[in-house]
Every structure is written in C-alpha cells, then in structure tokens.
C-alpha cells in the first residue's frame, strides 16, 4: 500500500468560545516532507492532534486515504493509527520502561512480531539512530536529544506510512536542533513515509520541506513549496519569514 495523501477540508475546531481553527484546508503530499508552520497559539498542534485522531474537528473532513478521520469510528481510526507514527514534543516515552521496551512496545502490544524479531528490529532502528548501545537503559537517564531519538525509533518500528513530528526542535540548542533535522530526513529515508512536521523553526522549514503551509489565526495563509514562500509578497508570509509580527 502506497503512502496516502491526507486531504484536510474546511476543518474548524473550538474550545469553549475560543475558535482555534477556522476552516483550514490543505493537502499533505504523499512521500514528501510537509511542514505546517505558524507562531505559538495559531492552531498547529491542534491540527496535528486532529490529523492523528486525538481531537475530532467540529466540522470539515480529514481524509486519510478513503477514511474520513473526522467521522470514523474509533476502531477505524485505530486501524489507521497502526500506519502512523508520532514524535511528541517531549518524546512522551514511558518512563517506567527501558529504551528497548519503549521501542518494542507497539510491536509487543499488537502482537506484530515475536520477542526475538522485535528486539532485532528495535536494535536495528536504534542503531541507525545512534542509540543501539542504550537498549537496556532507563529512559530517565537519557538527554532530551536522546529521548527524541528513542521516540523516533518507537514511531518508526511499525514501518509507518505517515510520521508526524510535533515541534521537534522546540527547547533544543542549535546543535541538537540540527540533529533533529537530520532525524526528520532520516525518518523519511528509512520508511519512505509521508512526513508532517509542525514547527516554527524557519531555517529547518526552508531547508527540509517539500511543502510548507503557514497558519495564521487558525487559517491557512499560504501553502506551497519553500521557493514559493521565499518569493511570496504576502505581508503575513514576509513578516513570518523575517521573524517580524504582522499582528
């Protein structure tokens, strides 16, 4: 099965009286690195949670292949989730488990491999990410960057068709930030997956993305290639690229 395109159409989402997403429409390109950018509080993470089925939109559709996540039953969404991987901002590793147990967890829980096969696969992926020797280590002993690598290994072990990254470089120093950038490219290379990155890191966006979508006040300002962004005369885009405030 090939990596699907995700079609997002007219998605709205409110929390109480606060409307976070106001009719967002965009396409996630299959097999490419897609960045969704915007300042803090513009609805990027909410959109990511809608794409992974953690939130339901108030209206609109999110089509993952032929399945509309907005209306699908939990069992259908769970089937889709087995084709997804998500790297959380802080990693969200299970701190009661070792590195190896964390990485193996999805295979163990869904009976997707024997213990020997799972360990072999986990060691291979951890090795590719430079974390092979930490297999038996408690996750509490890892640095932030190492935790992100382990979390990425856990996301990749099920051979996902789509990998989501939630603000992967937030809070990291430039060196760690560039390591995470490498992980994003690595994730796409390892699994040939569709990659969706929510970020406000402009440097990473323009150097890594195949497609960029800028959100502003819960709406799409522009969706296009990095070159289209660089050439855009739209004041919102220009302000965002230059780091200024258009508010």
């Amino acid at each position: 099965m090939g990596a699907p395109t995700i079609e997002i159409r007219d998605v709205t989402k409110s929390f109480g009286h606060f409307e976070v997403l106001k009719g967002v429409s965009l396409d996630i390109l299959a097999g490419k690195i897609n960045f969704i950018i915007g300042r803090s509080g513009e609805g990027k993470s909410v959109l990511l949670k809608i794409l992974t089925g953690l939130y339901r939109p108030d209206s609109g559709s999110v089509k993952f292949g032929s399945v509309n996540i907005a209306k699908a039953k939990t069992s259908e969404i769970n089937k889709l989730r087995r084709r997804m991987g998500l790297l959380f901002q802080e990693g969200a590793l299970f701190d009661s488990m070792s590195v190896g147990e964390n990485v193996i967890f999805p295979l163990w829980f869904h009976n997707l491999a024997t213990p020997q096969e799972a360990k072999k696969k986990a060691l291979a992926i951890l090795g590719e990410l430079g974390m092979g020797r930490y297999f038996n280590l408690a996750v509490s002993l890892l640095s932030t960057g190492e935790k992100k690598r382990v979390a990425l290994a856990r996301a990749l072990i099920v051979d996902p068709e789509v990998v989501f990254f939630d603000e992967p470089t937030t809070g990291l120093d430039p060196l760690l930030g560039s390591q995470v950038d490498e992980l994003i490219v690595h994730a796409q290379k390892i699994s040939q997956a569709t990659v969706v990155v929510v970020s406000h890191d402009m440097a990473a966006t323009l150097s890594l993305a195949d497609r960029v979508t800028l959100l502003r006040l819960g709406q799409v300002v522009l969706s296009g290639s990095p070159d289209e962004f660089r050439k855009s005369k739209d004041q919102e885009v220009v302000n965002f690229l230059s780091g200024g405030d258009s508010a």
Partner: protein
Amino acid sequence: MNPILAVVAAIGRFGLNAVFHLGRYGILTCKAILGLFTPPLRLRNYFKQMESVGVDSLFVVILTGLFTGGVFTLQIIYGFSRFSAESMVGPTVATAMTRELGPVLTALMVTGRVGSAMAAELSSMKVSEQMDALTVMAADPIKYLITPRLVAGVIMLPLLTAIADAVGVIGGFFVAVGRGLDPGQFTGRITDIVVMGDVFNGLIKAAFFGFIISSVGCYMGFYTQGGASGVGRSTTQAVVVSYVSILVSDFMMTAIMF
C-alpha cells in the same frame, strides 16, 4: 446577588458537579471492565499490577494486622476479665478482625500506598502526553492502564485481608498469652463463635474496597488537568475520596450483610 440565591446556586453547582463526576466515573469504570473481554489481554501487565498492589503491600499490611490485633486484645482483655469472660477474648478478636478491622484497615493502608501511587502515576502520564502516545499507537489507555489495576485491586485486597485477619488473631494471641491468658482459653471458642460467613463477608467487603481504591485512584489520575500541581491535587483527592468511600460503603455493607 441575593444571599439566598447565592446559596441555592452554590448547592446547584455542587450537585451538577457531583453528577458530572459520578457519570464520568461510571463510564470510565464500565469501559475498564469491558477491557477485560477484548483481546489482547497482556497478562504480564496484570501480574505486574498484582505484584504492585499485593506483594509490595504485604509488609505494611502484616504490620497493621499484627498491631491492630494486639492493641485490640489489650483493650478487651481488661474489660472481659472483670466479668470472667476471658474465654471470649479470642472469639471477639477473631470476629472483629474478620468482619471489620481486617478489611477496613487493610483497605485504608493500601489506599495510602497504592491508590495514591496509581493517581500519581496516571496523572504524570497524562501531563507528559504518555497517554496520548498510547492512543496514537492504537493502544487504548483505559484497557492498558486501568483494567489491570482494577483487576489487581479486586483480587489482591481479599488476599491481603485474609493475611491481615490471620496475623491480627496471631498478634492478639501473643498479647493475650503475654498477659497471662491460657493459650487454650484464647483459641478454644474461636471456631464456635466465628463462622465462615464472617470471614467470607469480610473478604467480599475487601474485594469491593479494592475496586474502590483502584477505580478512584485511576479516575483521579486519568482526568488530571494542569501540570505538577494537577498531579499533587489528583493524588490527594484520590486518597481522600477513597477513604470516605471505604468508610461509607463499609457501613452500608455491614448493615446489609450482618
């Protein structure tokens, strides 16, 4: 606002809040029970929780049972000896331990040790997005985290209570003998007075308390809001609500059973 209206509004808010929490608690526990009947079960997870609830609580429960039986004997031996009813000390200790002291004190100790830990663990998983991570990996957090804890509570509390009952009677025995009572006097009439129904009903109570401890601890942890302060608040609430629920339900079950 008119002070009377303000009081009525406050009562109304309290009522709505109570109904909201009871409803959400009911739905969560029903989903957790349903989790028992949907594969995969992952028995390793259940045994891990049983170890945490049962084996790890053993020491504190034995200590509690031993000293409770001992101090209870100290209190009654003096009074009973005034009526030459020393032969009733053993049966009284055994009845009190099996019917009330064993189940209730074991439940209160386990609440402090395990219920609070469940709330703290789940709430910290909630605030650090570990529960979202489970969901995104298509692993239902209720089934994975709460169902094994419920089962462990319901199975292990009666076992711990049985041990506390036995240790309490043994503690009472040593105190009574230490106070000059003949060993035969202490044990002689226990089997005449204490019937299996006493023991059995005490264990049923314990199973219900185990359900309360696990379900309340998990509920408080699962619906935690906020960061570190939310974790602390959930843990405190889990202990307080469990304590009150255990004592109230103990009264009601005792009224029904005995």
